[in-house]
């Protein structure tokens, strides 16, 4: 029996399907001893790509991409991998980006305006919103009005009010409304989450995350008039900063793993690196209090790339580190030992040794290819988009709902306010 991260009954089916599995048992790992017992719980955790056959369709889903910037381009690359998808239309108000996006497809029609696309591209069944964050709301509401299935990038909006409006509009929407919180579709995260939750939520000690990359966040424009529009992330009137743009995704990972909501945030931020007149911080530190009592320590910077982007959950038995395409479990010396660890792939990190979390480990182990499974065979974005397409074409439940998107986005937005003002900010869903 296959179980997978997109299955809404994933845990329940595991509970009923195997005597070896009980997410509430703190001694799960010990009881999993014996050959590959633990890994055999995941016979095929890698979800299949959306196909026409699985969808029972003869024609591919007609999709429109709104926003053909860097993220939009990455989406086109991933969507092109699905035989069940045809990119029918692309929209961007920047002519150069629009041309580049259209060129990436076989025969998409280009639009410079989202409303024109929604009115003109009648064959479009689903829209993907990848515009600047502050433009999401109107496009999302217009797309709902037009009756399209919707995938909206996270953060879903730049103010808590807009997040609320989108969430409310999506609440009783009869079509799919999914949010691009990729951690919820990522097979490595699903695998790590299952191990984490097997240890019991009460074992959680603390949370930590970072997003470090070396980039100016500045977008060059061939046309000076486009400069301001393209550099919306550095426009303090609409930008939600590092906490909003990066933090939203990572806060949601913690929500997803620990069933815990941030309740307050405090921190500092500043322009440490790029003295080019900007007033949106390039470096920030924030401490969240979580509803379950722990703290989430968060750092982000555009001035250094060391460590990249990752999240760590410390429990009394192990630490789980997730870095989007890779995941590791670092066990405490006094944690129970399992037989399958003998077969596990390991990586050394200074004084610590991480057990590599590998999706489809059982299958790979049986083929003697366990090492080949290190790292996801597709990008995190691929799995999020695959889930969306399958929600539309196969009816699987949405991986990240508008409500998830709103809660995570509001936390990111308010945390940004905290680090900008230096005040503690209460976070209410």
């Amino acid at each position, binding site marked *: 029996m296959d179980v997978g991260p997109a299955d809404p009954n994933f845990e329940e089916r595991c509970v009923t399907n195997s005597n070896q599995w009980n997410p509430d048992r703190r001694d799960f790992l010990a009881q999993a001893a014996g050959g590959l017992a633990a890994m055999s719980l995941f016979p095929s955790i890698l979800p299949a790509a959306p196909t026409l056959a699985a969808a029972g369709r003869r024609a591919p889903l007609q999709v429109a991409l709104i926003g053909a910037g860097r993220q939009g381009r990455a989406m*086109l*690359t991933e969507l092109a991998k699905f*035989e069940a998808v045809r990119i029918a239309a692309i929209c961007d108000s920047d002519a*150069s980006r629009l041309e580049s996006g259209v060129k990436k497809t076989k025969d998409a029609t280009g639009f410079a305006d989202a409303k024109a696309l929604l009115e003109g591209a009648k064959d479009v069944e689903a829209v993907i919103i990848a515009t600047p964050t502050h433009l999401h709301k109107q496009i999302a509401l217009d797309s709902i009005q037009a009756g399209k299935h919707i995938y909206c990038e996270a953060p879903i909006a730049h103010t808590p009010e807009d997040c609320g409006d989108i969430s409310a509009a999506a609440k009783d929407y009869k079509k799919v409304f999914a949010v691009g919180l990729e951690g919820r579709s990522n097979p490595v995260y699903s695998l790590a989450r299952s191990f984490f939750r097997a240890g019991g939520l009460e074992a959680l000690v603390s949370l930590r995350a970072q997003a470090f990359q070396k980039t100016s966040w500045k977008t*060059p424009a*061939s046309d000076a008039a486009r400069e301001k529009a393209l550099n919306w992330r550095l426009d303090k009137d609409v930008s939600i900063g590092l906490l909003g743009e990066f933090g939203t995704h990572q806060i949601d990972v913690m929500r997803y793993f620990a069933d815990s909501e941030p309740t307050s945030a405090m921190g500092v931020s500043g322009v440490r690196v790029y003295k080019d007149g900007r007033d949106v911080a390039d470096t920030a530190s924030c401490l969240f209090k979580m509803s379950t009592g722990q703290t989430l320590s968060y750092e982000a910077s555009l001035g250094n790339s060391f460590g990249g982007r990752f999240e760590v959950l410390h429990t009394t038995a192990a630490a789980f580190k997730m870095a989007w395409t890779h995941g590791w479990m670092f066990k405490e010396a006094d944690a129970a030992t399992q037989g399958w660890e003998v077969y596990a792939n390991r990586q050394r990190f200074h004084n610590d040794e991480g057990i590599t979390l590998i999706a489809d480990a059982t299958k790979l182990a049986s083929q003697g290819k366990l090492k080949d499974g290190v*790292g*996801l065979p597709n990008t995190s974005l*691929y799995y999020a988009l695959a889930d969306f397409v399958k929600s539309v074409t196969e009816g699987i439940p949405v991986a990240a709902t508008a409500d998830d998107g709103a809660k995570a986005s509001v936390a990111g937005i308010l945390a940004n306010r905290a680090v900008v003002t230096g005040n503690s900010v209460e976070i209410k869903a």
Partner: protein
Amino acid sequence: MLVNALEISSAAGESWPPLFALEAMGTRFELLLPALHERHARPIAEAALDIIREWHDALNAFSPASFVGRFNRSTPGEWLHIDNDLWTFLRYCHSVWTASAGAFDPALGARMHDLGLRSMKPAASLSPPAPSRASWGFSHLAWNPDHLAVARTIPIELDFGSVAKGWAIDRALDELKTLGITEALIHGGTSTVAAIGDGPSGTGWHVHVIPDLDGPIITLRNSAMSISSPRGRLSDHGHHHVIDPRTGESARCARWAICEATSAADSDAWSTVALVSGCSLGTTAQTIPTGVSIRLDKHEWTSALPTQTLRSGV
């Protein structure tokens, strides 16, 4: 290679001309934007280097999520759907493969693996399998233009090491030109270099190629050049990395081949073709494209030559 930008840099101070770098495709790309102050140059350089990173993500043979990773583990006959950018790249490769009569072949990955040229730790105790045309060859790539999909008909493995850097550099140059840049120099691992404009001195960008082997000085103006050489790491069996697709063995070839062209992809690919083809270059069925010029070292390469990587001065 030594580029005149070095002297400019030391004469004008550390911060000029702005130099930006990216680790990708197993090497280091560097971009010089001499006409701009660092503050203005950085976002432009980031945009250009982002394009290279995107191509790295697509063509990296060692990443399971790349197109090459997916292709190389796909079941023969399984169609892989791709975007039009990647399709265009593959068709370009097909055109060079055809024009070179097979001397350029990006489907040699499996054979390179057999020869111990794809692994950091080749199996020293095993002799490589005898060449078998059943394990390589671009002819075993199937095309579906209606759905932009490709498949391998037998378990060939792709390796775009002889063209990927050049192709990515061309796309980065496209971006720079779109952004109005009139002076730039970019190289990937010092084996492929391309220039926009006449260089800061107005006399072109002067590149001294492998000076320790009496290589020439080449002047670039809105053009590109690449060098191919068997030098570099040898496998435990003594194979160098320039494989002759006609035999499946390391090519018997000159110490270096240099190709100048208007595009970096052409210079990258045709420098390999030159090395593999040797004296038969341009004869038989090969059609060298207009604008491509090639120089071959008169000396034959031997494994007694030093195997350090090519000297870099950029």
